């Protein structure tokens, strides 16, 4: 028993760290209807600023706390509300997710740009001295960090329960989450209530961030992100409603971790795998077993019907003449590009464009799952990694050519995607995003950690394992290979999009109720689009590894999955063109940033650029770049077709109202629907 307590007690403060963040997540969701993916970034922001002010600016701890937590944290919450989330219709779950993810990757990148020295160590504790053992329970020493975690969690839980249950603001918050418009009809200032909720939740994020900072020796965003997944797990079991349940699950997870640490053999694979994967297993368990999570994110607002419909990721509608011109322009560009790559292109830029081709294939998988399937997957880099590691391990162990292995890798990635699809078959939107990010972190911490080395060395791609002179630095074989692979993938994706499956998926996106009502098997479509997306990502992953001449687990980590999403969402998630623009935009900007002084931020600037680009998803779900392209196409169309008599609009037949929107389509009896 003493052994058990000795193992279990240290888990309580550990679990309290999960619980504290989970409480913040539940509060935000309860009061605003948003599962705030940026929460970990908000906590990290306050912790970073607090530590910076104390360590670098030598401000007193109390003043630094006031600046970073009491002032900055609520202001960040208010900014997120005022400028981002308030503009999103309650039913638009994907837009809320994309906005949260943009901030999750954007805030740490902004910090890295502002504070060029982004390494912060040894954050001070605001309550108890972390180095002092205050007392012992069952022989277990309890230090300042332990006490801080427990006291902060208990105090926050108590304060929030009082706020939500016994204060008029709490009552208004609970009303506002059901329907902000309905409470406004009762004379409540709904905007102020929601803003208050964001400020309070921001304050808790800041408080949690600063309290937890001393737990980590070096402040790293990845620690806060991992903490957030554990918090997601606790919040998920609470169905994002019950604060006490969230705390209980958080603490239980902490206790389970330390018990496993105690009882499993030290240094065994079971020990390391069980410890790192526990939060993800708990999260996946909640997503599969808790029925309330299946409808998570669905608007319950009785006045939801007054919202305009969510803007669809519409197809571009072009006059046939313009469409012809655009097709010719594409072919000319392609020929010029290929000839340039094979003749005069400087080596450095040839490498950049080669990487762009490989990324384009990976990004096509996002076009499939998000653009066509209407689902947000946060594990596309993971699926690419499954393909790449499968191919690399087959090459190393069986001597299989990497190109053949790439096909096997694509099948492996598709199979992983199918397992994920079956596990998430009842989930949509929010639940699916959580499931896929859990899978990504699970692979990062377990599978990829195991397979990323051979005999203790990182996996490198050699000419022997690829052949055909693909790695010859003076040749163009990789370019030819990448062009062929990308072309095949684009053609297949376009055929699926324009064929029956694409139409079924379009129907599913438009109205899943009506789609199943006409005989579309939604489950099969869900699995199929995951499998196709996984296969394409797997091929892209192998191609990327050949291009990088190594199989680097960093490249396939969860954080890259998020970055990939914001990049593709910015350029255009609904078209194959968008994926290619994303692939090239990503690497070209990366290369251009190497020419500007490093103090301007380098890669962080790139992330910020795309993170802010993705914020436009709310207004332009087709992608801000795609939107601008369509605007210019429309202008060109008006210019070219000027003076031509407009064809008479077809008279309405039978019962019909006034046509609305898409006036150009009405004016043109034979528009071309381009993708």
């Amino acid at each position, binding site marked *: 028993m003493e052994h058990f307590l000795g193992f279990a007690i240290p888990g309580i403060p550990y679990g309290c760290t999960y619980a504290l963040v989970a409480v913040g997540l539940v509060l935000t969701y309860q009061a605003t209807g948003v599962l705030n993916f940026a929460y970990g970034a908000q906590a990290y922001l306050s912790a970073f600023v607090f530590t910076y002010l104390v360590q670098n600016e030598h401000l007193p701890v109390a003043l630094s706390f006031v600046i970073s937590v009491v002032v900055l944290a609520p202001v960040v919450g208010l900014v997120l509300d005022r400028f981002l989330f308030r503009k999103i219709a309650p039913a638009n779950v994907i837009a809320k997710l994309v906005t949260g993810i943009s901030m999750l990757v954007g805030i740490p990148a902004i910090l890295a740009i502002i504070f060029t020295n982004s390494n912060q160590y040894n954050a001070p504790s605001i309550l108890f001295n972390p180095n002092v053992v205050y007392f012992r329970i069952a022989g277990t020493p309890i230090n300042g960090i332990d006490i801080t975690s427990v006291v902060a969690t208990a105090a926050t839980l108590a304060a929030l329960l009082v706020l939500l249950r016994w204060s008029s603001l709490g009552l208004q918050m609970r009303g506002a989450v059901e329907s902000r418009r309905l409470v406004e009809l009762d004379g409540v200032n709904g905007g102020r209530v929601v803003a208050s909720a964001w400020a309070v939740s921001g304050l808790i994020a800041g408080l949690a961030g600063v309290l937890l900072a001393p737990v980590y020796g070096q402040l790293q965003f990845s620690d806060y992100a991992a903490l957030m997944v554990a918090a997601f797990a606790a919040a998920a079991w609470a169905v994002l409603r019950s604060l006490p349940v969230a705390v209980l699950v958080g603490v239980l997870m902490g206790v389970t971790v330390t018990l496993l640490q105690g009882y499993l053999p030290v240094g065994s694979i079971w020990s390391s795998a069980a410890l790192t994967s526990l939060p993800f297993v708990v999260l996946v368990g909640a997503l599969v077993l808790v029925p309330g999570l299946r409808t998570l994110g669905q608007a319950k607002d009785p006045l939801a*019907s007054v919202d305009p*419909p969510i803007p*669809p*990721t*519409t*197809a571009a*509608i072009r006059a046939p003449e313009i469409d012809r011109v655009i097709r010719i322009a594409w072919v000319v560009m392609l020929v010029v590009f290929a000839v340039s790559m094979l003749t005069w292109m400087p080596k450095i830029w040839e490498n950049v464009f080669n990487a762009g081709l490989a990324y384009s294939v990976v990004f096509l998988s996002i076009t499939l799952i998000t653009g066509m399937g209407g689902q947000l997957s946060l594990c596309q880099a993971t699926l690419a990694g499954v393909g790449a590691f499968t191919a690399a391990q087959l090459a190393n162990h069986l001597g299989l050519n990497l190109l053949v292995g790439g096909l096997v890798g694509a099948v492996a990635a598709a199979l992983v995607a199918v397992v994920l699809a079956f596990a998430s078959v009842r989930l949509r939107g929010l639940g699916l995003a959580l499931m896929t990010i859990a899978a990504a972190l699970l692979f990062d911490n377990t599978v990829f950690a195991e397979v990323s080395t051979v005999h203790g060395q990182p996996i490198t791609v050699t000419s022997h394992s690829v052949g055909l002179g693909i790695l010859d630095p003076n040749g163009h074989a990789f370019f030819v290979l990448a062009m062929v692979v990308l072309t095949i993938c684009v053609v*297949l994706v376009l*055929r*699926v999009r*324009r*064929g*029956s*499956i*694409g*139409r*079924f998926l*379009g*129907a599913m*996106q*438009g*109205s899943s*109720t*009506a*789609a*199943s*009502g*006409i*005989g*579309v*098997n*939604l489950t099969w479509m869900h699995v*199929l689009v995951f499998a196709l997306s996984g296969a394409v990502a797997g091929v892209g992953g192998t191609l990327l590894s050949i291009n990088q001449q190594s199989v680097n687990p960093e490249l396939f980590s969860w954080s890259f999955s998020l970055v990939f999403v914001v990049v593709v969402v910015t350029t255009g998630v609904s078209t194959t063109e968008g994926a290619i623009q994303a692939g090239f935009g990503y690497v070209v900007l990366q290369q251009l940033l190497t020419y500007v002084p490093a103090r301007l931020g380098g890669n962080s600037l790139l992330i910020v650029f795309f993170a802010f680009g993705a914020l436009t998803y709310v207004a332009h779900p087709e992608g801000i770049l795609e939107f601008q392209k369509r605007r210019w196409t429309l202008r060109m169309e008006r210019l070219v077709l000027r003076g031509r008599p407009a064809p008479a609009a*077809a*008279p*309405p*037949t*039978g*019962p*019909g*109202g*006034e*046509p*609305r*929107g*898409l*006036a150009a*389509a*009405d004016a043109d*009896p*034979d*528009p071309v*629907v381009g993708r």
Partner: protein
Amino acid sequence: MPLPDVLLRVDEVSKSFGGIAAVNGVSMEVRRGESVGLVGPNGAGKTTLFNCVCGQLRPERGGIDLDGRPLVDMPTFERARLGIGRTYQRVEVFPDMTVRDHLLVAHRARWRTGRLWRDLCNLSKPTTEESAKVDAVLGMVGLDERADAPVASLGLGLCRLVELARALVTDPMILMADEPSSGLDVHETRELGAVLRQVQRDQGMAMVLVEHDLGMVAEVVDRTVVMNLGEVIAEGDFASVMADPAVRTAYLGVQE
């Protein structure tokens, strides 16, 4: 006593939400080629019964058969493939698609002709038979001149016709129309009623029509079933049902 040549049989179906019985032991039958109106005041349980038949809801008790095949354990898409066509109270269209695409996708889903391998081999262009069928249905409901218009450019009345055409193109054994006149004006309602009656007679299919516009019901249906508070309270031809004291009480809230 069971009706001869019954197509749809609903037997003692019950469905409740949080302790409130939305449908309570309802039984009804629809013959082949028959048009049945399902009416009743708000909250009578009409749409819940519809959802139980079409598969969006699973009843707690009772059985539902279509053409002798039990439906209760069958998912929605399989019921559609069996021959249940449906339109919705709140218009459910696919905003990214043209009118023609709506019909094509429904036709392929119904007859399971949309295959991945056909897409990958570029064999998914509409066949002559598919185009002929789609054109015929578009002509039937008067949408032929709007065939290539994106459905997002159409008004509510035309969207209701698109829903109807999408259901008809699957050659349903039975059409379940849920408040098709909702949101339409008097003129549009009359025209839609005429279209419904015409296609139902031409195609010889059965139809169940949930409708608040009793004028439309009177024009379109052969038989009327009245529900109130989750139960069937009257059944018969429209005039006699409307003269039923229980129906008048349900609608007007007065005791005869």
